[in-house]
């Protein structure tokens, strides 16, 4: 089986290695493949390429700004499309709302749940608990911005009523095994993502340097200024700009903060063996074409694993244009 993907890479599933390593048996239950969708076209392409679900933002209520958000009508259409295909839509409501905004957002979520929204992704323990209490039928994911990293974090969000918790793609399969051994909550791993120098959810360098830039960028309902809260335009990627490093007042280097594009498709089988429930792809700002290509690649690897085959990723690296870093 060969899944052709645009660009440099192709994914090959080897039946021979499967016979050697696992034997041929009935297909295994596979993790959900969760794709980003910044617009309706991307959602459609992701579903066609094999995503089980997409996550989308609703204008004004998701972290990262207006880029990559749907308006209410587009969201309704997205949910209808997913239902027609037997798939799911999750809503990234991953800002940190203030008290008044919480009630408005809860009202929106209640309406969207009636439309058929299956899950919401949130970024604040207090809001998570409030959604659980007010909308008990809605699945809730503790966003990667919650900063969960360990087994006890997973148990904490499980206690609050979360359905799933997102871990960053730089954790190892052994850590997933440890979490799954103690926690019943679903474990979602963002295997395709940009790993910035600072842990996700724990960076306020931009607002230290320029809070007002976020506040003035775009008139919006959401909180301004803070990346963490979801401020519009507030992450101006200072970590991707050159900095002078001084030691005892003397310049010793010009450098960027370290950062890496993670794409662990080659290790997907290990994460699935470890018990990951959801494989998540970062990048609501990616084009529909790129989302399709990435999802096709992960789908092929996932299907190969499900059938007991060994997937071999034979490209040295993803083209930059495929990556979230290249956004």
């Amino acid at each position, binding site marked *: 089986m060969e899944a052709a993907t645009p660009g440099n890479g192709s994914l090959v599933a080897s039946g021979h290695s499967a016979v050697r390593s696992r034997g041929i048996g009935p297909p295994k239950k596979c993790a959900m493949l969760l794709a980003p969708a910044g617009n309706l076209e991307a959602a459609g392409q992701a579903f066609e390429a094999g995503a089980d679900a997409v996550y989308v933002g609703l204008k004004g209520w998701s972290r990262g700004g207006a880029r990559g958000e749907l308006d209410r009508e587009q969201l309704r259409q997205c949910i209808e499309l997913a239902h027609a295909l037997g798939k799911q839509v999750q809503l990234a409501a991953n800002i940190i709302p203030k008290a008044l905004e919480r009630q408005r957002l809860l009202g929106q979520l209640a309406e969207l749940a009636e439309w058929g929204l299956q899950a919401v992704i949130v970024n604040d323990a207090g809001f998570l608990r409030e959604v659980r209490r007010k909308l008990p039928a809605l699945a809730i994911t503790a966003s990667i911005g919650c900063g969960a990293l*360990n087994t006890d974090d997973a148990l904490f969000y499980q206690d*609050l009523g979360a359905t799933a918790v997102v871990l960053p793609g730089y954790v190892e399969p052994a850590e997933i095994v440890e979490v799954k051994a103690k926690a019943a909550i679903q474990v979602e791993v963002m295997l395709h993502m940009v790993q910035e120098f600072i842990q996700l959810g724990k960076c*306020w*360098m931009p607002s230290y*340097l320029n809070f*007002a830039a976020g506040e003035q960028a775009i008139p919006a309902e959401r909180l301004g200024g803070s990346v963490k809260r979801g401020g519009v335009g507030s992450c101006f990627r200072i970590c991707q*700009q050159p900095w002078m*490093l001084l030691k005892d007042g003397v310049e010793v280097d010009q*450098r960027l903060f370290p950062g890496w594009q993670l794409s662990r498709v080659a290790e997907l089988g290990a994460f699935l063996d470890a018990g990951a429930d959801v494989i998540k792809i970062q990048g609501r700002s990616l084009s529909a074409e790129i989302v399709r290509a990435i999802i096709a690649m992960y789908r092929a690897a996932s299907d190969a694993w499900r059938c007991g085959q060994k997937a071999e990723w034979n490209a040295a690296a993803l083209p930059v244009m495929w990556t979230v870093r290249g956004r």
Partner: protein
Amino acid sequence: MGAFELNTTISNLRSLQESDLSAYDAVYLGNIYCRIFEDNFLERMNDLKEGIARVKDQGLRAYVTSYAGPRNDALPKVEMALETAAAAAADAVEVHNLGVLRLIHEQYPGMPVHIGGFANVYTDAGTAVLKEFGAVRFTPNYEISLDEVRAITAAVGIPAELLVHGKMPLGVSDYCFLLEYESHWPEKCPVVCQKQLFLRQGDWAMRSVGKGVLSGKDVCMLEHLPTLLAAGHKAFRIETAYETPEYRLGIARIYRTALERALAGDGTVDESVWQMIREHTAVGLCNGFYFGRTGGEYIGSRAETTAAC
């Protein structure tokens, strides 16, 4: 607690022994960024036990902090530090990670917990959850304003601890890029991060401590202490995890004097004090986000110059 509490952070026993803590009421022991920071209290249980005893022997409250972003491999050590803190009768533990908060709630239900600045306390709803898990005090996320802090304390009923002076944490990492320089520099891990290292771009500067990034400027709320006291705040932190004993003592004396004067109705600060403050900052002063502005700005009557780091 008396009329106020002035506290600070000390990472290891050496630094504790070198520090005059006479101007403080409490000390947090441990380095939250790096497990291999020089003789980190959080990795050396005998040192931690001795540190707690030394602090308490001086009549101060001893708090034990914990890692900002622990993965599973760090949790056994976190549990050992908690066990040591409990056995040595530490007065509270500080928690930045919500999994660790849950762990304490399960295993040490009576242990007072202070929520740290990396726990991302932004809202009253979030703080209420943490209170149910045993939190008795919280450091708000550094990004929120004094008005927002007041709204949280009023709604939830637990006090805030405010950073009043020192370099404000801006981020924590799994990776130490200073290790890239080990082959070129005479200083090696685990002491290289204690050098005066700044990242600079134009007028902007941040302090690098390897796995953490701090504000280049020192937060300074000296002239705003009467406002903080009037708002009911009592717990104040001078952040000195990467500072010298001289800084730790000098700044604390200034703030203790100013707090006592403010409580007596005199909100003024002697001009000579500002000269001392200037001598202890490499880049300049700021107020953090307390006034709803860019964290690196200074609001107030002082127009301190930006230094060259």
